[in-house]
């Protein structure tokens, strides 16, 4: 089996269309940019103030005034733009970002998302996540299906919400799931797993699409 993160990132990449404005969360989501199909150019938005973010900067050739939201030196593409934080979140909240891809601690069958706080333990703050998942046209959760065997896809989130009813799609190493009014629908299954495996790894009822396809 290929690297789990690459499986997820490469599948997420297929959800993006040419010309989409996309905000990628830190970590796994960042890898998505490496797997874009040919002919698909996306425009990366970085919430610290870039439209048209490019690749990581080459060591020694950095513009020290240009970093991404993880405070790493990056480049910008021709046609890029810098802006302030109010403008950045105006773009995000205003529905001008086509897709945001980020990780989760928990997602539930209502599309509720928890990814910013573990009370009494981890209180990093929500950063821009609450605005991103409320504002982006499509919210894709890219994560490992379980956390060391513990369910992350649940009937109801147990952790405080990042936002309610915002998740459109969940992509894990086991498959692709869509959040619908009826519940979570498995639409694609990774060849390394059986439907029963995914059901067992999921903490809520999993609707199996009559049109279930292999994940690729």
């Amino acid at each position, binding site marked *: 089996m290929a690297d789990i993160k690459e499986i997820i990132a490469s599948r997420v990449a297929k959800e993006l269309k040419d010309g989409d404005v996309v905000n990628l969360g830190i970590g796994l989501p960042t890898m998505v940019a490496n797997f874009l199909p040919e002919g698909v150019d996306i425009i990366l938005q*970085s*919430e*610290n*103030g*870039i439209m048209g973010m490019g690749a990581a900067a080459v060591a020694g050739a950095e*513009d*020290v*005034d*240009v*970093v*991404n*939201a*993880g*405070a*790493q*030196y990056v480049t910008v593409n021709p046609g890029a733009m*810098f*802006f*302030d*934080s*109010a403008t*950045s*979140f*105006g773009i*995000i*909240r205003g529905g001008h970002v086509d897709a945001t891809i980020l990780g989760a601690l928990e997602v539930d069958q209502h599309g509720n998302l928890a990814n910013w706080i573990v009370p009494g333990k*981890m*209180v*990093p*703050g*929500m*950063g*821009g*996540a*609450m*605005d991103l998942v*409320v*504002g982006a046209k499509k919210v894709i959760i890219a994560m490992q299906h379980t956390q060391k065997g513990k369910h992350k896809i649940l009937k109801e989130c147990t952790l*405080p*919400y*990042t*936002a*309610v*009813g915002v998740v459109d799609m969940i992509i894990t190493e086991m498959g692709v799931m869509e959040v619908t009014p009826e519940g979570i629908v498995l639409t694609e299954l990774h060849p390394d797993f059986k439907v029963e495996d995914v059901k067992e790894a999921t903490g809520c009822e999993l609707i199996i699409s009559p049109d279930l396809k292999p994940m690729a």
Partner: protein
Amino acid sequence: MINKVKTADEAVAGISDGATIMVGGFMACGTPEILIDALVRKNVKNLTIICNDAGVPGRGVGKLLSNGQIKTLIASHVGLNPEVATRMNTDVAADKLECILVPQGTLAERIRAGGTGLGGFLTPTGVGTIVAEGKQVINVSGRDYLLELPLRAEYAFIRGSVTDKFGNTTYNGTTRTFNPMMAAAADHVIVGTCEIVEMGEIDPNNVVTSGIFVDTIVGGEKQWQI
């Protein structure tokens, strides 16, 4: 014309214990280190700091935190500075940090509202979450919004790339961040800038922050480095 150019120590001379200060920047990129350093030297305590994040140890507002100067931090993200957790959980009352977390877009917009005379705004961000606690929910056209209120401060620490002697300022790359909103939302605005030029040298189309907001200009800010 009034001379606004001062040294960093002169610029922070009037700041007292317990002051509220907005600090521009995102993970210290866009934070005027020259002003932070002067505030560390002045060593005033019990500050309320409004900043996107807690910087990192040894950078940005992280320096104020390490020096025990912050009583309350209003920020969107503090996870990349481990000192925050340490100080939030300490039993030493004098070192204890109060941390008020605000979604990043809401923080930017609250500061903008503070500078532009709005009494508040309705945002969908945070509806149904603990961010909504204690806030008025207003329904417009069938959708719920939180009423968020303006934020202002006594001081703003702004980091400029180029500033003219009137205070007109530009920001290079991703140093812009919260600086333009904060420059309008504080009673006393201090710009730490990389380069001071004569009036008229910045194209009026490209000025981002008007000099009318700026009380004090401090030169000598260094280029940012990770």
